[in-house]
């Protein structure tokens, strides 16, 4: 029994390689592990809720109503920055298509020449000159590209990210070119919010103590103390982090470069990206253009899946629709032979998981699966092996004749 390949339209995010999770039909992009991100949300929302519930009424009456208003504005800004950092594409670079990967391989082999047997081939590096300095571009074996300068491969998300800073579990995403400024504004505003809440917490306790005594204050407002502790500890870490990133921005460096010591030390190259001026560096990082995502998560693409020919009788209209929408006529192909993994149209990211699953199933056991519906992408392999391009027309005519007889 042969199978027919049918195509359906899917969003590109469904076929993207890498270990990201997508929500809202590709609008939201995060890392897989989101546990710490939920903790961050809980801590911020929880702490602020306690502040608004227990402290703000007293402060609004006895000091000024502007205090809770400003706190609310700051809280919304912090949440907006956090969600923006967590949900946006950090600057992921799409993997090379097979043609480009092959071309790069050929280039590398041509450069390296013949490597004697038993010897390791030289590392895949491309030297480029940036602002008068020689910078080495490394080859990424996963993405099959030479990484642009400042890009790095995140092993957690399994993507190359442009201007890779670090992978932050607290925001549940990588921090890269596209979301670095949101990350920085998040840490800055969170520092301000934490300092603000902590300060007014102390003001509140002092004011109450002046009126009613310290011990009575502690008894009256038990809810404030858990989050005062949280505030105290987060204050040091968040303020410290903000200070660190302010330092990095003023030097136009990334956390990744700082950790690796790319631009430090006498023998090393000086940072070619720095403008040697703190203000210019800050302006470039924080006030530069908003870079677009190059991933096109919500674009449509064709997804090939094979359907047993017996299932075709229940979808005659679909066949005609496919025919009219594509306009090209191609003969039926048997899907019994394993699919060649590296060849596909420029539109496809890679062969779908379903196709590789089919290839696997065929290799293991040729059990017939003719009764499956079109949505389940399983083919029915025949016991005899047929080369992929063999006699497509006979297959087509045979199935047509069979169909005509059935009707």
């Amino acid at each position, binding site marked *: 029994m042969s199978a*027919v*390949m*049918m*195509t359906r339209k899917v969003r590109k995010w469904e076929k993207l390689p890498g270990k990201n999770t997508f929500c809202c039909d590709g609008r939201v992009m995060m890392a897989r592990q989101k546990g710490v991100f939920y903790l961050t949300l809980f801590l911020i929302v929880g702490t602020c809720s306690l502040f608004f519930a227990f402290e703000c009424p007293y402060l609004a009456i006895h000091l000024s109503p502007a205090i809770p208003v400003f706190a609310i504005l700051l809280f*919304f*800004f912090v949440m*907006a*920055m956090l969600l*923006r950092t967590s949900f946006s594409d950090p600057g992921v*670079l*799409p993997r090379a*298509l097979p*043609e*480009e990967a092959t*071309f790069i391989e050929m280039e590398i082999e041509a450069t390296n020449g013949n490597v004697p047997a038993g010897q390791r081939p030289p590392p895949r590096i491309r030297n*480029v*000159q*940036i602002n008068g300095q020689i910078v080495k571009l490394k080859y990424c074996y996963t993405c099959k*590209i030479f990484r*642009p*300068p400042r890009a790095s491969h995140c092993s957690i998300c399994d993507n190359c990210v442009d*201007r890779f800073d670090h992978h932050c579990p607290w925001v549940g995403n990588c921090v890269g070119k596209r979301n670095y400024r*949101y990350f920085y*504004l998040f840490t800055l505003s969170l520092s301000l919010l934490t300092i603000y809440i902590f300060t007014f917490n102390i003001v509140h306790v002092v004011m109450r103590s002046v009126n009613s005594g310290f011990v009575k204050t502690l008894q009256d407002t038990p809810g404030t103390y858990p989050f005062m502790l949280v505030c105290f500890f987060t204050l040091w870490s968040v303020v410290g982090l903000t200070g660190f990133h302010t330092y990095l921005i003023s030097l136009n460096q990334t956390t990744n470069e700082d950790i690796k010591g790319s631009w430090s030390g006498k023998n090393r190259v000086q940072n070619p*990206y720095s403008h040697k001026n703190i203000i210019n560096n800050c*302006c470039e990082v*924080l*006030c*530069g*253009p*908003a*870079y*677009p995502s*190059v991933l*096109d998560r919500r674009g449509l693409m*064709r997804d*090939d899946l*094979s359907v047993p020919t017996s299932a*075709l009788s229940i979808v005659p209209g679909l*066949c*005609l629709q496919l*025919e009219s929408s594509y306009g*090209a*006529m*191609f*003969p*039926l*192909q048997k899907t019994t032979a394993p*699919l*060649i993994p590296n*060849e*596909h*149209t*420029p539109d496809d990211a890679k*062969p779908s998981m379903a196709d590789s699953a089919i290839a696997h199933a065929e290799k293991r056991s040729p059990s017939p699966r003719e009764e499956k519906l079109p949505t389940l992408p399983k083919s029915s392999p025949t016991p005899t092996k047929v080369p*992929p*391009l063999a006699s497509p027309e006979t297959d*087509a*005519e045979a199935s*047509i004749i069979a169909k005509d007889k059935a009707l």
Partner: protein
Amino acid sequence: MAEAHNLQDLQHQAAVASKVYVQRDYNSGTICRFQTKFPSELEARVDRQQFEETMQTLNNLYAEAEKIGGKSYLEGCLACMTAYTIFLCMETHYEKVLKKIARFIKEQNEKIYAPLGLLLTDPIERGLRVVSFTVPEAHTNKGCFPNATIIPLYVPWALVKSSAL
């Protein structure tokens, strides 16, 4: 209409054609700029000056998109004050220029490269890393029967024809 069809045909053939890649030029930093050096593979196919003009215009457009000046500061400040929610309704300057670039590439393909049998692909599709020119291979028998895995399957036209008879 015929030109659009030609473009579509070329895109279909792209899978069985060879590609010439023009890499990024990093001499001035990480700004988006492509090399204007004429690749030897295109020697016989396209005029050198035409190629350089196309690449230079592309570079100028990207420079306009990434320009850090009064306009980008204003956009940044306004966006920051609204906690970047304004980008949910408004298009950024970069996105506007990208649309301009897409139109420019389409126009270049229609007017210059499609008649020469070439196809220029938008670098945004490859992550702004390369500009590729698709050079269709010489027409051979092998080329007439595309690989099964490249071309998706359709119900053969014979089925449609037989129902029409």
